[in-house]
């Protein structure tokens, strides 16, 4: 989930040629990829045999246990770039990389305390269910559906560019191979989602979480054993081999420069901690369990797994600095994405040895499995938004007088969702191919910032603010979404820098790379303003219903 610093553009396919004989890596890695893909396809085929009611398709039947759902939530959240990207940042920048682990983890308290149970009680399949519960359906659903799809696509593109980089890294592939990887990943995720729905997606997440946690534990134990279980000697060696000495363990190596870079970091920190609670694919996971209490317990499971995982990425990051050395990591990949594979190779016995080759390939396969699972989760959430929020709303007006059977409507939604997955997959493939050589850190930071600016204010207001109105909800969503997108277009990420999306021109007016610091308060402000300026008062009866339902579970789907 956290591709921060996962720099797609600077990954060089030539890495393997420098490091070891590429052939062995490739062979083994391809066998492992194929194995994982076969397992996931089997899961999809098995899940696809079921009758496709909408509860089955969008919520996997709602009868997952808290432990299963907790594993799946963790799977949705921990992406390859958390695994490779954060450890890489720590290997390069020491303490400043560690700040990411903390932000991504602390965010879960917002989800646990303010969102999970109440969202489970108030909604059926999507974020828009909750936002529109006490409002006029049409405008709020369209707004919430749109922002969910925008967040999801940004996120999806980041993941797919990550996959293409990973293949470049593992298989030494260039242009064509990476293009085909993006297309292959896109096709697979569309297949998982449109044939397997939520049930297949959930089981794929569970398998992936087990693999990822297993791989991470193995590497962490090997690092700790190498340093005789003494964290102090690990830190000491990391500082010594980083080339920065003691400064490596303190803040400032990455974000210590100008005030803009410091503000940028605070902005990112804010987006990370508030964004998680607005991510559509995380919210939709709560509908796969029967009750709010199970939703709470799934989050507790997820927090346990995610916390352990991020703690281990810290060990891996410092371990890579200590064992591999920051300079070696940097020369292999400027963004540090190869730190963990390099570490695995040395821990396994070094380049050219069997152990090294096997561990390297395993790490690559786990990272690839991770990406596949994450993209499936996001695609499902966004196709649910398209079908259940956008299509159903537009369709409902068209057939309002026909008194269309509710059941028929639901079948329609599932059918539309299957096609929407194809459309979203195609869009994501297209954008990913265009953005293939770009830095993807901004896409993830942006996805989080948009989620925090557009989704979170409306969600919190509608759950907790008695006076919140339809206009407030619509303004909160667009008032966060539009500034977030505009500020990114005006930021140095888009223009004015050599590594920008459009390096040739310079129209950057906004100094920060991450819009969160400005756009999140704007989202909250717009929601408040829209409510205050609303011509109508809030419906007290509907708020009573939302509040009572959210806390008691009465009438929950």
């Amino acid at each position: 989930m956290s591709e921060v610093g996962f720099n797609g553009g600077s990954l060089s396919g030539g890495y393997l040629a420098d490091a070891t004989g590429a052939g062995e890596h490739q062979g083994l890695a391809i066998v492992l990829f194929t194995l994982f893909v076969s397992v996931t396809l089997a899961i999809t085929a098995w899940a696809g045999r079921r009758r496709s009611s909408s509860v089955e398709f969008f919520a996997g039947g709602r009868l997952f246990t808290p432990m299963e759902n907790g594993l799946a939530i963790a799977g949705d959240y921990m992406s390859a770039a958390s695994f490779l990207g954060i450890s890489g940042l720590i290997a390069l920048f020491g303490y400043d990389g560690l700040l990411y682990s903390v932000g991504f983890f602390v965010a879960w308290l917002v989800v646990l305390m303010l969102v999970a149970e109440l969202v489970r009680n108030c909604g059926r399949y999507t974020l828009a269910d909750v936002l529109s519960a006490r409002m006029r359906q049409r405008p709020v659903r369209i707004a919430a559906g749109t922002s969910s799809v925008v967040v999801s696509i940004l996120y999806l593109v980041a993941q797919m560019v990550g996959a293409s980089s990973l293949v470049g890294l593992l298989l030494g592939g260039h242009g064509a191979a990476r293009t085909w990887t993006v297309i292959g990943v896109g096709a697979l995720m569309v297949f998982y989602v449109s044939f397997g729905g939520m049930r297949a997606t959930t089981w794929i997440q569970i398998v992936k979480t087990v693999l990822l946690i297993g791989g991470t534990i193995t590497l962490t134990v090997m690092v700790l054993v190498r340093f005789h279980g003494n964290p102090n000697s690990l830190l000491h060696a990391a500082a010594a081999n980083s080339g920065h000495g003691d400064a490596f363990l303190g803040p400032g190596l990455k974000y210590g420069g100008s005030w803009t870079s410091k503000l940028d970091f605070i902005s990112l920190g804010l987006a990370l901690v508030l964004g998680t609670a607005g991510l559509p694919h995380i919210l939709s996971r709560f509908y796969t369990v029967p009750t709010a209490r199970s939703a709470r317990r799934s989050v507790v499971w997820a927090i346990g797994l995610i916390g352990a995982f991020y703690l281990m990425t810290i060990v891996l990051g410092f371990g890579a600095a200590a064992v591999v050395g920051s300079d070696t990591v940097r020369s292999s990949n400027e963004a540090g994405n190869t730190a963990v594979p390099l570490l695995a190779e040395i821990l396994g016995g070094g380049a050219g040895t069997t152990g090294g080759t096997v561990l390297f390939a395993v790490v690559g396969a786990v990272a690839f499995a991770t990406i596949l699972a994450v993209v499936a989760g996001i695609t499902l959430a966004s196709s649910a938004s398209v079908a259940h929020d956008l299509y159903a709303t537009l369709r409902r007006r068209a057939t309002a007088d026909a008194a269309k059977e509710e059941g028929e409507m639901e079948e329609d939604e599932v059918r539309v969702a299957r096609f929407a997955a194809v459309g979203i997959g195609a869009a994501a493939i297209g954008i990913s191919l265009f953005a293939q050589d770009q830095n993807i850190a901004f896409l993830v930071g942006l996805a989080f910032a948009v989620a925090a600016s557009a989704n979170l204010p409306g969600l919190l207001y509608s759950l907790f603010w008695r006076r919140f109105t339809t206009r407030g909800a619509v303004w909160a969503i667009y008032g966060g979404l539009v500034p977030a997108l505009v500020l990114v277009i005006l930021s140095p990420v888009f223009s004015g820098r050599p590594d920008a999306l459009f390096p040739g021109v310079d129209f950057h007016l906004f100094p920060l790379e991450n819009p969160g610091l400005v756009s999140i308060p704007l989202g909250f402000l717009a929601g408040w303003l829209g409510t205050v300026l609303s011509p109508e008062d809030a419906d007290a009866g509907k708020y009573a219903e939302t509040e009572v339902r959210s806390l008691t579970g009465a009438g929950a789907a």
Partner: protein
Amino acid sequence: MDKQDGVDPGALRMNDPWQDTAGAGLWIPDQTAPEAGPERTRPEGAPRQDLETGAVDRSAVYLEVQDSAAFQEVRARYRGFAFPAVAAFLVWYLLYVVAATAAPDLMAHHVAGDLNVAMVAGLAQFATTFLLTWAYARHARLRRDRAALDLRWSLATRTGQERVR
């Protein structure tokens, strides 16, 4: 894994480290109703439009429940824990982030061996997150779940619509 037969959600408690003993038996398996088509079981097959015009009765019930002492108690317990806890950890997290950018020297101060203030604070963020998670789950389980479930049942009987949406 087929759970269509209405497995009690608590059945997995054996492997669940967050299991509760106090709340055992609390969850009457109200989720065993077939999930397949809740919409079709809407009373008298009332279409959506009727629900909106006929909302007066339901609104009245919900308003009354919202005003009831039992519900006020549940809400006060929830908010009394969640709001201060969220405020506290957000402030603590923001302090941590701002300190790294505004007071790097303080953060780089050594505590023990190679461990400095920044590293200790980072690990402390992990620790407080785990701790708050445990405290929140425990508070909800012991102080809120039973009262909320009672309300849910009384509402279900009054509105006759356990599954409205």
